[in-house]
């Protein structure tokens, strides 16, 4: 094996590795170059998260516009606080935007769905979303259903 062949094929090998990495980034994980740093944080309080995870999607009208970054329990109110990063490109969310914990499909993962409100003022970094709707918990639903049936 000539020296040139060796060097050339090692070069090709390295380039293949680079191509694989780029494909992984762009085609497989759908990474776009601008989203990482340009976000702002908003917070919301929920009574029940029903299995929402950190890193869950935050979407509006089905389009992902951010991610859940932190979940913790507020020890004064005993309610769950969810911190989420919203892309800077979506900086025009009105102050009375509402947040709900929704499920993708019947058994799919939980995500935060935002619905836009009517106010003129926009949410800023560190603001709270006041209007929230907790996750649907299947046991509670069934319990309520049975209870109302029994009353009839």
């Amino acid at each position, binding site marked *: *094996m000539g020296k040139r062949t*060796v*060097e050339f*094929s*090692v070069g*090709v*090998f*390295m380039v*293949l*590795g680079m*191509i*694989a*990495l780029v*494909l*992984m*980034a762009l*085609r*497989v*994980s*759908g*990474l776009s170059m601008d989203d990482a740093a340009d976000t702002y944080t908003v917070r919301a309080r929920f009574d029940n998260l029903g299995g929402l*995870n*950190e*890193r869950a*999607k935050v979407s509006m009208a089905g389009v*992902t516009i951010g991610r859940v970054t932190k979940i913790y329990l507020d020890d004064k109110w005993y309610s769950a606080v969810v911190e989420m990063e919203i892309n800077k490109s979506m900086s025009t969310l009105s102050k009375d935007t509402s947040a709900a914990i929704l499920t993708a*499909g019947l*058994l799919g993962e939980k995500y935060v769905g935002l619905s836009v409100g009517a106010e003129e003022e926009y949410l800023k970094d560190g603001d709270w979303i006041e209007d929230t709707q907790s996750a649907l918990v299947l046991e509670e639903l069934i319990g309520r259903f049975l209870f109302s049936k029994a009353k009839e």
Partner: protein
Amino acid sequence: MLNRIADMGRYGVQVIESLGSATLLFANSLMWGGPGSAGFADLVRQIFSVGVRSLSIIAVAGFFVGMVLGLQGYTILVDFGSEAALGTLVSLTLLRELGPVVTALLFAGRAGSALTAEIGLMKATEQLSAMEMMGVDPLKRVITPRLWAGIISMPILALIFSTVGIWGGAFVAVDMLGIDDGAYWGNMQAAVEFYNDVAKGIFKSFVFGWVVTWIAVYQGYASIPTSEGIGKATTQTVVVSSLAVLGLDFVLTAVMFGGV
């Protein structure tokens, strides 16, 4: 009974001894420089024999593994009517687990055993001793470039394995089973995260490359320099490094993905 316990004790001492000398070998050969140290050209040549020569088996294996994942995943997911999630299943399985692990196992069989045999043979034919007597440190000349070639090649091979596998899965899913092209890639892109899936997978393969190459060069360097000893060391390389990869995979998975 006493003999048994003594045997166990001796075995334990042997294991600790070889761990110690393997660590010394690693520490002494990790850094470049020293009497007659290898150069960049040696590294390139070793990447060729460790990495490029393993490329074809890795690519073919990756393609088949991806296709099998596509088929198996389809038969399970179609029962739940969620065959659109096939892309997610194939890509996450490959990126997080099968890519790094299967590549490492194939790498141990293909490149690891070859490394052990090569170094063992150099020892048996006194080439390593001859180097020492020429004032050339065989650790720096022989072991260092091979160690680094393994550490560099393995993540590249794992990336290629996963990439080929994902496209193999796409071939089965989209072209053979008729899943919508957009669903396969779209769901995948929604689920796969670069830092949490791709980067962690690369980190895994980096660790595996390091462990497998380390075990391979150590087994070769410490082998008994006879044809029987080299054969034994080669087997030992494949066995020990495969087990090490699987064990480490559990630890890494628990640390990186387990808490989520």
